[in-house]
């Protein structure tokens, strides 16, 4: 009803304005279909929704098709066919935030705004919804109010915030106490804190001389630069750990006229927020790494793919790019190197975890649904628009710049045999010192827990939702590619947290974020969650655990990309590491009845409508129930 009312009120204005808005936005982006994500973002902001009529207008302007536009609008969470309020409040619904009390915060907002979750106020001003991890797990519960980040929310601060919003309708006025470092600067101006707790020698070293890496690189030949990166042993920091030097080498060798360098800043793995801090404090180093990569592989164009949740960093990042251009470190003849030209544009995402997967990210940059591509060909052969493309994580580019500055051997001397250098961990959960820790690879989980002041740690999730869940018996394992790899996420939970509710959350997350392209990931994860809930509710038997393992194998073996290849990991690793928890929740049924079938609830409606009791199952009729 509410939505219908808004539609009616807005319709007259919309019809007039939609056409002109669509026309002007399309013109701004030169009617370039590749930029359609940007176009849709702007149209969404200005019209509050992208409905069927707007889709048709867009299709006309861009010589596309309504169903293609609908495909995009219905894929990315930040687009909506239904009218959204001018101010959208997105509460972070990560597992950390749940444990930190986001439901109470939600209660405050629904109370103050007079709407439920996923609703819009009648005046069309506020929308309220949940969103997956926004990269603020160390300051949970957190929320995005348009592009303003509110952190460490309490019921009291949430109420004050909601009332202020109701008064002045201006999210930017919410920023009171600014965060540390560049967060306090004019361009970021955010309440976010960096919480850098441990500085290592690679990324957060105190003295990093700006431009040193690039200067060193330009003194060498491109293949020597690649060789340096290979010699350093640098592996991708996003989680998969592919050799960075090899990736660059493959792209450099691919037969092509154009090549692309893409930086993956779509940090969406639950519990990961280290790229957010690098983007805040080491943006210049990251761009330098991209520039070095461009020089090494012979690329003229780069893209920084920034997740929509980090839009508040955009003005700052643009200014860093601007400064680099002014200083001759971007553009033509970079740093005086004749013929070396490189430009970077920033592509904002629109709310899709899967876009962190490199080929999905490329699809998204191309203005497509963020679905993975078939491999082979790999992006290093045929990537962005069919050109050889390297996609590296923010941290990887930062490392590369440092390697060129300080030398491959300096870097490879840190860490373990197969995991060289330092790694940024973003630690969150039940600990007294959540935040960013730069540490050499190979550190024991128990040492990490001590460092972070973990409180009664019982469950540790390393590597985010798709990572491994371990218990106390495995706390002597090490953080490195050869043992426990992680893209940065490290979550610790105390013994009063429920293992199953964590597993259930991760499955809910994967179901929400699966692109739906392939059968096993689209459907299989739904079935996994159904059975995990059966276990949680105490209705499962031993055989259900076999079913879970069996189904997990099918999903991992047959899915098309990394999401489905890893989504059952919380299930598999929790069954392996917490057998007693599962054993205590399962029991054999004696009579062969399904414990999950509840005749009483199945009859409740019927009793109400028929206004009588059951002859069979209600004792009132004399016969006792089973």
């Amino acid at each position, binding site marked *: 009803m509410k939505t219908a009312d808004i539609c009616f009120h807005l319709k007259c204005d919309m019809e007039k304005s939609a056409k002109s808005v669509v026309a002007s936005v399309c013109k701004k982006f030169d009617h370039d279909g590749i930029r359609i994500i940007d176009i849709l973002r702007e149209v969404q902001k200005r019209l509050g929704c992208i409905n069927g009529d707007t889709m048709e207008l867009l299709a006309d302007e861009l010589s596309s098709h309504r169903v293609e536009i609908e495909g995009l609008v219905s894929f990315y969470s930040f687009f909506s066919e239904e009218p959204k309020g001018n101010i959208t409040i997105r509460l972070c619904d990560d597992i950390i935030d749940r444990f930190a009390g986001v439901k109470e915060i939600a209660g405050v907002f629904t109370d103050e705004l007079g709407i439920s979750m996923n609703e819009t106020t009648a005046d069309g001003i506020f929308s309220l919804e949940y969103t997956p991890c926004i990269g603020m797990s160390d300051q949970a519960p957190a929320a995005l109010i348009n592009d303003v980040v509110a952190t460490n929310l309490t019921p009291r601060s949430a109420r004050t915030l909601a009332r202020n919003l109701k008064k002045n309708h201006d999210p930017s006025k919410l920023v009171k106490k600014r965060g540390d470092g560049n967060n306090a600067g004019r361009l970021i101006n955010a309440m976010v804190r960096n919480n850098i707790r441990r500085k290592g020698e690679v990324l957060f070293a105190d003295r990093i001389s700006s431009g040193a890496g690039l200067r060193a690189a330009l003194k060498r030949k491109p293949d020597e630069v690649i060789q340096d990166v290979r010699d350093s042993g640098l592996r991708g920091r996003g989680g998969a750990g592919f050799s960075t030097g090899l990736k660059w080498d493959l792209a450099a060798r691919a037969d092509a006229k154009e090549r692309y360098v893409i930086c993956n800043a779509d940090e969406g793995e639950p519990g990961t927020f280290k790229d957010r801090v690098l983007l805040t404090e080491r943006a210049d180093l990251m761009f330098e790494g991209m520039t070095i990569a461009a020089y090494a592989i012979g690329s003229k164009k780069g893209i920084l793919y920034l997740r929509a949740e980090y839009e508040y960093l955009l003005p700052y990042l643009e200014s860093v790019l601007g400064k680099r251009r002014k200083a001759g470190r971007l553009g033509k003849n970079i740093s005086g190197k004749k013929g070396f030209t490189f430009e970077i544009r920033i592509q904002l995402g629109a709310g899709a975890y899967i876009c962190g997967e490199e080929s999905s990210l490329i699809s998204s940059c191309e203005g497509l649904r963020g679905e993975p591509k078939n491999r082979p060909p790999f992006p290093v052969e045929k990537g962005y628009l069919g050109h050889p493309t390297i996609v590296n994580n923010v941290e990887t580019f930062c490392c590369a710049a440092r390697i060129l500055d300080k030398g491959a051997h300096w870097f490879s001397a840190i860490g373990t045999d197969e995991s060289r250098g330092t790694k940024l961990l973003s630690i969150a959960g039940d600990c007294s010192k959540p935040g960013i820790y730069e540490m050499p690879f190979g550190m024991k989980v128990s040492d990490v827990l001590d460092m972070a002041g973990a409180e009664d740690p019982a469950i540790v999730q390393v590597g985010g939702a798709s990572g491994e869940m371990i218990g106390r018996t495995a706390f002597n394992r090490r953080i490195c590619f050869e043992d426990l790899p992680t893209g940065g996420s490290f979550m610790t939970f105390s013994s009063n947290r429920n293992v199953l509710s964590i597993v259930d959350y991760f499955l809910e997350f994967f179901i929400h974020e699966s692109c739906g392209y392939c059968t096993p990931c689209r459907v299989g994860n739904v079935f996994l969650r159904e059975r995990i809930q059966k276990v949680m509710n105490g209705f499962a038997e031993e055989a259900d655990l076999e079913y879970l393992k069996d189904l997990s194998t099918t999903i991992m073996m047959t899915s098309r990309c990394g999401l489905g290849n890893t989504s059952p990991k919380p299930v598999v690793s929790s069954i392996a590491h917490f057998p007693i928890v599962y054993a205590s929740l399962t029991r054999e049924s004696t009579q062969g009845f399904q414990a999950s079938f509840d005749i009483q609830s199945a009859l409740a409606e019927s009793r109400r409508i*028929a206004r009588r009791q*059951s002859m069979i*199952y209600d004792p009132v009729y004399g016969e006792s129930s089973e």
Partner: protein
Amino acid sequence: MKKKIATVSLAGCFGCHMSILDIDERILDLLKVAEFDKTPVNDLKKFTQRCDIGLIEGGCCNEENVHTLQEFRKNCDLLVAVGACAIMGGLPVMRNAIMNSEDPLRECLEEAYLNSSSVYNADNDIPNDPALPLILDKVYTCPEVVKIDYQIPGCPPSGDILWRTLIALINGVPADLPYGLIRYD
């Protein structure tokens, strides 16, 4: 010792039972190795002994279906879901399509007894005699209610697949089912 077989039709159309009769003269061979206990075939209404094999036709639409199915589970060593309705709800399960409406069960009853264009109901009554079993909130498949050991698909399964499966179950060997016998329709 002859194996004891019981059969029942829950929310089904008795089509699967017609197929039991469709094993034709082979029923004489069947009776050499098995005997029927509770089944509409001999009109025996109650279990007289524990049975080896229970054949279930139909899913669960009302409380009596659930009760009967549970009785079968208690009294049979092996339970076989026979036909589309027992396995996945069959035609009756189409009513689950209205589960998302505001008051699904009432809508279902009103459609069936009052509103449907093919209904003539001068009294405008929805039957509600105390002797009528209460209808369930939705249609449940047999495996949702009790554990099912085997299934024979088909709507109805042919006499041939029933025969081959029964003989295999009685002899404790895997059934040999040539192409064309496994059918979902």
